[in-house]
């Protein structure tokens, strides 16, 4: 509201400064009012969006601190009277959560590293080299983006089981060793870098790998960070593939562990379940807050050369 007030002051003063032509100042006043209304509508719209996105999180947080009877009260109470921190301990104790978390970290980080290793050279080649069949190969990469994983999980499962990779970390990592989305994203970023830069590096006697590592990759860093974040979140939260690939605790990840709370505690222990969910998303929130600036930069980077 304060900002809006400040916005009003400016035009009004300007209107008063003009020669006291009645119609003109009335018009100026009308325009100012319209301005304020528009600003308020804009703010209201944004607030609504924030509510839509934030409400589930707030509810999750609130429920995770309630006793079981409290979760059933209608209308719901947003702030529990006596926050029950013990829910977190209970959730943690329903299964080997430290083990799950270690698995999740190993798998999400390994996937990320492998993806970096594959998508950087691949996207660089697609962006910068003309080779026979490059267009065809790239379209194959793009096609894989359109195939839902549910469609191919069975053959991939059979393949990995033939290699005796069920219930192993490798079985959860290898299917995601590359990413079509990442190749696409990075290829676009590499293509925007001017040829002259590469030519200058060639004249500076830089080997091809050095051009990639020292010049090209640092220039696409914001895009790379964004992709890393997407990838990390997707595989940290992934439920489907770990469910398919694991039948015992060896390689199980956090999302499977959280889902198991329901089996252990019986249906309806929402407070424990929500506490488990918060344990699941907390690391992601931390990563997100740490790299927020980089992400925003990645989206506005294209305009700033």
């Amino acid at each position, binding site marked *: 509201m304060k900002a809006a007030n400040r916005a009003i002051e400016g035009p009004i003063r300007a209107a008063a400064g003009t020669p006291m032509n009645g119609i003109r100042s009335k018009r100026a006043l009308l325009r100012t009012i319209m301005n304020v209304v528009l600003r308020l509508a804009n703010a209201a719209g944004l607030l609504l969006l924030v509510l839509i996105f934030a409400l589930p999180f707030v509810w999750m947080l609130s429920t995770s601190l309630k006793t079981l009877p409290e979760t059933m009260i209608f209308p719901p109470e947003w702030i529990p009277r006596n926050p029950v921190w013990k829910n977190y301990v209970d959730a943690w104790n329903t299964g080997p959560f430290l083990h799950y978390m270690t698995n999740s970290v190993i798998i999400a980080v390994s996937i990320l590293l492998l993806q970096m290793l594959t998508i950087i050279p691949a996207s660089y080649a697609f962006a910068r080299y003309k080779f026979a069949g490059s267009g065809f190969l790239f379209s194959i990469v793009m096609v894989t983006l359109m195939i839902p994983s549910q469609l191919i999980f069975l053959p991939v499962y059979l393949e990995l089981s033939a290699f005796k990779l069920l219930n192993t970390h490798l079985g959860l990592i290898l299917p995601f060793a590359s990413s079509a989305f990442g190749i696409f994203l990075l290829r676009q970023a590499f293509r925007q870098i*001017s040829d*002259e*830069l590469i*030519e*200058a*590096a*060639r*004249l*500076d*006697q*830089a*080997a091809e790998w*050095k051009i990639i590592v*020292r*010049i090209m990759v*640092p*220039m696409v*860093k914001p895009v790379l960070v964004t992709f890393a974040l997407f990838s990390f979140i997707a595989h940290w939260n992934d439920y489907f593939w770990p469910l398919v690939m694991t039948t015992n605790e060896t390689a199980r990840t956090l999302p499977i562990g959280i889902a198991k709370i329901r089996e252990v505690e019986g249906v309806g222990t929402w407070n424990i379940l929500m506490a488990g969910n918060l344990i699941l998303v907390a690391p992601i929130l931390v990563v997100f807050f740490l790299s927020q600036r980089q992400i925003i930069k990645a989206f506005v980077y294209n305009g700033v050369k």
Partner: protein
Amino acid sequence: MARILLKGISKTFKDETVIQDLNLEIKDGSFTVLVGPSGCGKSTTLRMVAGLEKQSGGEIWIDDTCVNDTPPGMRDVAMVFQNYALYPTMTVRGNIEFGLKNRGVPRNERDKLVKDISEIVGLAPFLDKKPQSLSGGQRQRVALARAMVKKPKVFILDEPLSNLDAKLRNQMRTELIQLHKRLGTTFVYVTHDQVEAMSMGDEIVVMNKGAIQQADSPMKLYQDPANLFTAQFIGTPAMNIIDMQGMKGLNIRSDRPVGFIGFRPEQGLLNPDRPVEGLVLKGDILTRESLGAENIYQIRSDAGTFFVKTFLRPLEPADAVTVAVPHDQLYYFGPDGGRIYGAGMQERALIAGGAIV
């Protein structure tokens, strides 16, 4: 220090021939400027010398080595790009020493070279800044320093001043001339600006449509153009050309047919005090441009519109004027644009809109 020799160079992009059978010698230690309108093949020629573009045919020699198959980094050639092409993620120091690092120059030697060069181009206070935080002129200096620090045999500059404002451009022009004197390295410079070419080069190569029109010293080029294109490309305003087609009564002695007659704007005498032996044109002044020491008039006559330039004389107030061009200041060209030497005019012949006195 190196001499560059281009032998029968040609370049085709897909079906389009950009350069055909180009032969050129760039002298050791010269400041050679390739100049021509955009699309004439000058940049392509330069890029082939640098090795960034592979010629479709012919040989490129630097000193006594044929560099046809030498990669760009090994040709001992440094280049300054039009858009500077600085590495945005590296500091100024990183930019300058990148080439040295790749050559495996040890650290203490590198530091010394970077320090020396940054003092020469006045970048010492900015070594740890990123290029984005520098002004256009400073970026240009970084690009120069990056090229100079490698002590190349050949220095290649592709329109390096076109992104600078007029004042800075003039300043950098003189700095580049001094730099060339100091280094004594062969400079090959590409520009579309003939003023830049005239003021900087000691050897100018005028190109058009992928062919060399003339390669000469600036004054020779100006005073003795080999063809119509060079005559019209060099000089501001350009040489006045009178098309002989439809021109009657002009009696020219020549063993070849004459298509065009030309004269430099400053050789046209405006309302001469005494009779002049030569071409006399009568016309009306359309516009007057006063630049202080010199005035430029655009004059319309029956022979066409042309320019006359006068020095240190008051602005001509009259509208109708007579312009006389002495015989020895007239240039004759064939219908194909080639220069004709040894042609002259029959004296006292009358032409439409003008007279020979």
